[in-house]
């Protein structure tokens, strides 16, 4: 049931270049596509500010091509579908920021993203680029137990890092401070994802995983990686009731905390469903005395047409609130400020 074998593409091996070409043509005022296949901000940020680069597998749009722009990333290095780009391409991305204040390579923790970023930084150093650093980010409580946070993988909760770090780096010339800010957001963020259906890998044309009609998978990764386990399909309210308490317990989030809530649509969930899910989340949070500062319901990091969602909470203080509220203008994420 449900995965969509029909895709509107031309040839599997042309998906990436054709997507980038179409995307860049649609938003010429926000981004440009370089000859090397990088998505770069049309108007560079102010001189002397830290450049933000992220390399990642494609197929998760709007992430990350849609997150390049004012108050967001300077450069995105899009890899093949679900495949991190190689080290040379990340080095090209570092150079493309043209930032004199240093470059932070952001890594959503997955083996491929991490190893390639490490290799890229080695290469960059060998080329004499010394003001580049990387930060490894993760949020998914299902992928490693508490106490082993650095083994966890990056999922949709990194939305908060990108948004807040993007706003921060817009005015910061301090590479160390940018890295510390990214880690602060990461360390205050926790996520858990679920899926109702699988999806089709657009290159292989094959199902990414199997999920029976009456089951859901809780603890899903952003590439269809299996989660903590299968469960029987339950109602929207019961799904939230299952997912929110472990998130709260993990940080832990406590009465009196202020949080921003993200419900990330993994693909073909509807805003109708997201709203119904959100309703139950607000009720549970109200019961625990946790205060919601802001919420964002929508698709940010998708896994093709997979039906599912990620629930993420970020605990915020005055600094993070201001960064969240700062204006942003990516092709597929705008914040009016």
């Amino acid at each position, binding site marked *: 049931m449900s995965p969509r074998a029909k895709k509107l593409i031309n040839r599997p*091996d042309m998906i990436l270049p054709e997507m980038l070409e179409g995307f860049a043509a649609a938003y010429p005022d926000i981004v440009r596509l370089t000859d090397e296949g990088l998505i770069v901000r049309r108007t560079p940020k102010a001189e002397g500010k830290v450049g933000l680069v992220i390399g990642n597998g494609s197929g998760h749009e709007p992430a990350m091509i849609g997150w390049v722009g004012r108050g967001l990333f300077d450069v995105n290095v899009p890899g093949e579908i*679900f*495949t*991190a780009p190689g*080290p*040379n391409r990340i080095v090209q991305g570092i150079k493309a920021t043209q930032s004199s204040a240093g470059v932070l390579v952001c890594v959503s923790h*997955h083996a491929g993203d991490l190893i*390639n970023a490490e290799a890229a930084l080695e290469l960059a150093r060998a080329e004499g680029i010394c003001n580049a650093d990387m930060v490894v980010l993760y949020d998914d409580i299902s992928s490693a137990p508490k106490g082993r946070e650095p083994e966890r993988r990056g999922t949709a909760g990194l939305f908060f890092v990108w948004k807040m770090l993007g706003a921060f780096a817009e005015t910061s010339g301090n590479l160390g401070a940018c890295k510390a800010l990214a880690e602060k957001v990461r360390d205050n963020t926790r996520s858990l994802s679920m899926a109702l259906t699988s999806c089709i890998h657009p290159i292989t044309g094959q199902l*990414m995983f199997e999920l029976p009609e009456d089951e859901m998978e809780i603890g899903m*990764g952003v590439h269809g990686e299996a989660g903590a386990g299968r469960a029987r399909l339950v109602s929207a309210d019961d799904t939230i009731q299952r997912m929110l308490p472990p998130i709260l317990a993990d940080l832990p989030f406590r009465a009196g905390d202020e949080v921003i809530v993200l419900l990330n649509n993994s693909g073909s969930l509807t805003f109708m469903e997201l709203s119904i899910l959100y309703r139950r989340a607000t009720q549970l949070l109200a019961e625990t005395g946790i205060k919601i500062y802001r919420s964002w319901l929508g698709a940010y990091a998708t896994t093709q047409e997979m039906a599912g969602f990620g629930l993420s909470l970020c605990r915020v203080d005055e600094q993070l609130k201001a960064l969240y509220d700062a204006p942003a203008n990516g092709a597929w994420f705008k914040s009016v400020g």
Partner: protein
Amino acid sequence: MTDTIDGRQWVALIRAMAEAVVARRDYLSALDSTVGDGDHGVSLAKALGEAARQTTALGDPSPESALHTAGSAIQNTMGGASGILFGAFFMGMARAIAGRPSATLSDLAAMSAAGLSEVQRRGKASRGDKTMVDALAPAVVAAQTAVVESQPLAEAVENIAEAARLGAESTKAMVAKFGRAKFLGERSLGYQDAGATSMSIMLSALAEGLKGEV
């Protein structure tokens, strides 16, 4: 059959590896599909094709240049964890033969060990973790044994390939600790690892290529 391998021969061997993987593309993708995302055959075939194209374009390169070019092409075409690791294998081999016009059996043993070490430096996997290391590490042992026993190159490469094949097969009984499959835990039991299988296919292609007097 030759008993040293020069730069041109390495180019031909890289082409042979590419052809072998292209011929088994769907099989490799299928192996990757139950516990991974099913793209292994497609992306490795594309990457090795690019490696073959770039090394062929070098004309008459040194072994180091041929192998380094192949590794870099794989890393940047394939991407992902497996791209950088297959690339690291070639780049480790390249470094071990740096500045030399051709490779003897004892060079080959040192090169494969250097390739393995580079794969492990980047990927952190050990034997038993159900990765390409489980095909490559026994192949390195076989190469070293061949040197100790002064086997002729033809016999040595067959033993190397056979060790890799058995190593790949042994991954069926392993629980994955790396790659996408690790999130499946025990559910990964019973499936042969895709990367180990393609490593074994590449080493078999190398053996066949040398027998066929590339």
